[in-house]
């Protein structure tokens, strides 16, 4: 008899299976009133050498620096100069301008795919600014802010997105899967959380060589469910690796809310507790909290005090990607109900409160950055857009599978070149 046909054999109460369900679906009115928002100065900042078991509270609290009136307060305030704050604001605004333009380019049919990080700009921009320039970043797919904060040329990002003649990845990768070794930016995979153990390996190598550089890595709360995440934390704690783990908890993994990664039961920062590493849960929409937490974790790693897991509590304001329609699974106005606001608006407000910024400067900068993105886009499009001509010599398809091309790939390349000639004639050149 199949198990599914068995009837209860006793008078015990029947078991029930729990399937997580987000609180709000399309048509509902979201209310996040029950999310605990501790006061900005409520969280003490321990020394970077504190043992993980002496700072567990930080895995369940919320590190904040900026209050909702634009004031920076408390022990975590990194006390950045106005100049530095303005740089941070500029980078975040540039990310947003870039995202808006590239999203539109995809909608105009100029490329296949794009992913915005709207509302999450601080989690990569402020984080990168707190690192040394030589530290190594292992991004997931929504960390374009790292490249922007390290002044990677916008045109190279666009060339990659368009898979055009200027794309140094030769059109091999899906848009936004950048690679930039000179900017300490690892090749983006597209398989989730695979970069987690890789970052630990890089950090282990750095430590074994007596280097001073550390590694830092990002994933979403959804992909923290992957085995690679847990492999990475195990290796990191075993070898006390100088690495910072960022979990960007933006509440949504495509249509799956954080409950499908275990978010109903505990925080993602609390994953650190079981591994005996330091964990910080922070307001990911507060750029100063992101900066301060990263600086703390970087100091800790650099002084051989081990890894840190940072949960950036934030909200994915837009769809997962251009292939997604979030209105099909969550209320359309959920983002505006999010109690932690918008990171750009909050930093702007802080600078204005300090008297270091004003509305006119803000609008001028927005216009300037939009213009910069637009001008760069025009230059990039001169090198081609996806689907309008083939931009790479066909034989590049076979290069770099191995350092030297083995006979079977040479044979297949010859076959493909014959196909190319049959279709396009002998004089075809990349467009």
């Amino acid at each position, binding site marked *: 008899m199949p198990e599914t046909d068995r009837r209860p054999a006793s008078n015990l109460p029947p078991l029930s299976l729990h399937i997580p369900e987000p609180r709000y679906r399309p048509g509902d009115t979201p209310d996040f009133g029950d999310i605990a928002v501790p006061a900005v100065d409520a969280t003490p900042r321990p020394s970077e050498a504190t043992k993980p078991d002496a700072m567990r509270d930080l895995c369940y609290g919320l590190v904040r620096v900026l209050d909702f009136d634009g004031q920076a307060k408390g022990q975590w305030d990194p006390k950045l100069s106005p100049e530095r704050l303005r740089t941070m604001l500029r980078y975040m605004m540039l990310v947003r301008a870039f995202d808006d333009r590239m999203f539109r380019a995809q909608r105009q049919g100029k490329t296949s795919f794009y992913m915005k990080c709207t509302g999450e700009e601080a989690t990569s921009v402020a984080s990168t600014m707190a690192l040394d320039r030589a530290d190594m970043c292992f991004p997931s797919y929504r960390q374009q802010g790292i490249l922007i904060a390290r002044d990677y040329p916008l045109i190279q990002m666009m060339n990659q997105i368009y898979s055009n003649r200027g794309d140094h*990845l030769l059109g091999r990768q899906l848009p936004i899967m950048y690679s930039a070794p000179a900017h300490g930016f690892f090749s983006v995979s597209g398989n989730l959380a695979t970069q987690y*153990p890789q970052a630990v390996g890089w950090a282990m190598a750095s430590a074994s060589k007596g280097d001073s550089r550390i590694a830092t890595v990002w994933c979403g709360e959804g992909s923290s469910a992957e085995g690679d995440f847990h*492999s990475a934390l195990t290796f990191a704690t075993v070898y006390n690796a100088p690495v910072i783990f960022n979990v960007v908890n933006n509440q949504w993994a495509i249509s799956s809310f954080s409950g499908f990664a275990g978010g109903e039961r505990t925080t993602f920062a609390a994953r650190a507790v079981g591994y005996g590493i330091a964990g910080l849960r922070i307001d990911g929409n507060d750029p100063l909290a992101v900066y301060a937490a990263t600086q703390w974790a970087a100091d800790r790693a650099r002084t051989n005090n081990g890894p840190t897991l940072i949960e950036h509590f934030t909200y994915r304001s837009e769809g997962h990607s251009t292939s997604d329609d979030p209105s099909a699974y969550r209320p359309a106005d959920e983002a505006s109900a999010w109690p932690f606001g918008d990171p750009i608006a909050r930093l702007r407000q802080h600078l204005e409160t300090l008297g270091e910024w004003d509305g006119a400067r803000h609008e001028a900068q927005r216009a300037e950055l939009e213009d910069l993105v637009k001008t760069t886009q025009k230059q990039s499009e001169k090198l081609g857009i996806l689907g309008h001509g083939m931009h790479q010599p066909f034989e590049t398809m076979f290069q770099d599978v*191995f350092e030297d091309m083995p006979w079977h790939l040479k044979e297949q390349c010859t076959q493909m070149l014959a196909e190319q000639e049959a279709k396009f004639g002998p004089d075809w050149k990349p467009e």
Partner: protein
Amino acid sequence: MSTDTQTATKTMNMIEAINSAMDVMLERDSNVVVMGEDVGYFGGVFRATAGLQKKHGKTRVFDTPINECGIIGVAVGMGAYGLRPVPEIQFADYIYPGLDQLVSEAARLRYRSANDYICPMTVRTPFGGGIFGGQTHSQSPESIMTHICGVKTVIPSNPYDAKGLLIAAIEDNDPVVFLEPKRIYNGPFSGYYDRPVEPWSKHPASAVPEGHYRIELGKAATVREGEALTVLAYGTMVHVVKTIVEELKVDAEIIDLRTLLPLDIDAIEASVKKTGRCLVIHEATRTSGFGAELAALVQERCFYHLEAPVERVTGFDTPYPHSLEWAYFPGPVRIATALTKILKD
């Protein structure tokens, strides 16, 4: 073969030769690191890393958590930093938790980053049956490896080759899966499980130079020249099939492939065109096994020279059984039957 340094030769079994290859590379290149489950202080469950931690230190040769995804994943990151990691997976049967890191990461890193990053990693792992390992310590996953774009697959069949190939693999700038046939770690296997095992010391390939030498990846070796048919073999099966053809006085030409990818197609083609018959042999399961690829290549390239259909001798399409191990193993009876069939026309 190329030898940089003239060194004395020593009699070694496969384990000692593999150990010597890592020892030489740890000495020559400070970026080489050896890691895996039990490989450090203890020296590995098969003793392949014995003494290496003591000699080269704990940051060069160390134990890892029991986590193959982590082992291969951190090796990818170490490679990106500039190290040349040599991770061990304790049994090839355990490689599957690390397969995503191998297939989607290590193998494609050079390609997807257009040479921004490379993965100069050599994954060593014992494979194959014949030691009563049951279904989780006996598998032969080589065709899973050869199906990955961007990974080289190497299988030595004797101590001399094992050392030269492993050094070449470690020095290679692409990821290599180095499958070690564990049945022949201590001596070549005749295929007769009920006969005493010959030690390697009686085999000429146990004379191994103590220093550095390389055997180029992608080059097969002719183990026995012959006219009646070509046998394509690798690993343990090289010795098994050699025993049987000699017993049956079949004038077989035996090609030890040594590297499955990139494959030495010229050696295969030349031999099959000469003999007109081809037997492919492996211990792995039959369907979609590497023998299927070999049979396809031979018929594509040598069809008009063939006097009989290409014959496959393989393991069966079942999990590797424990008690019935020798009924599963492609041994003397299965080989003799295939030889009779392929030679009868």
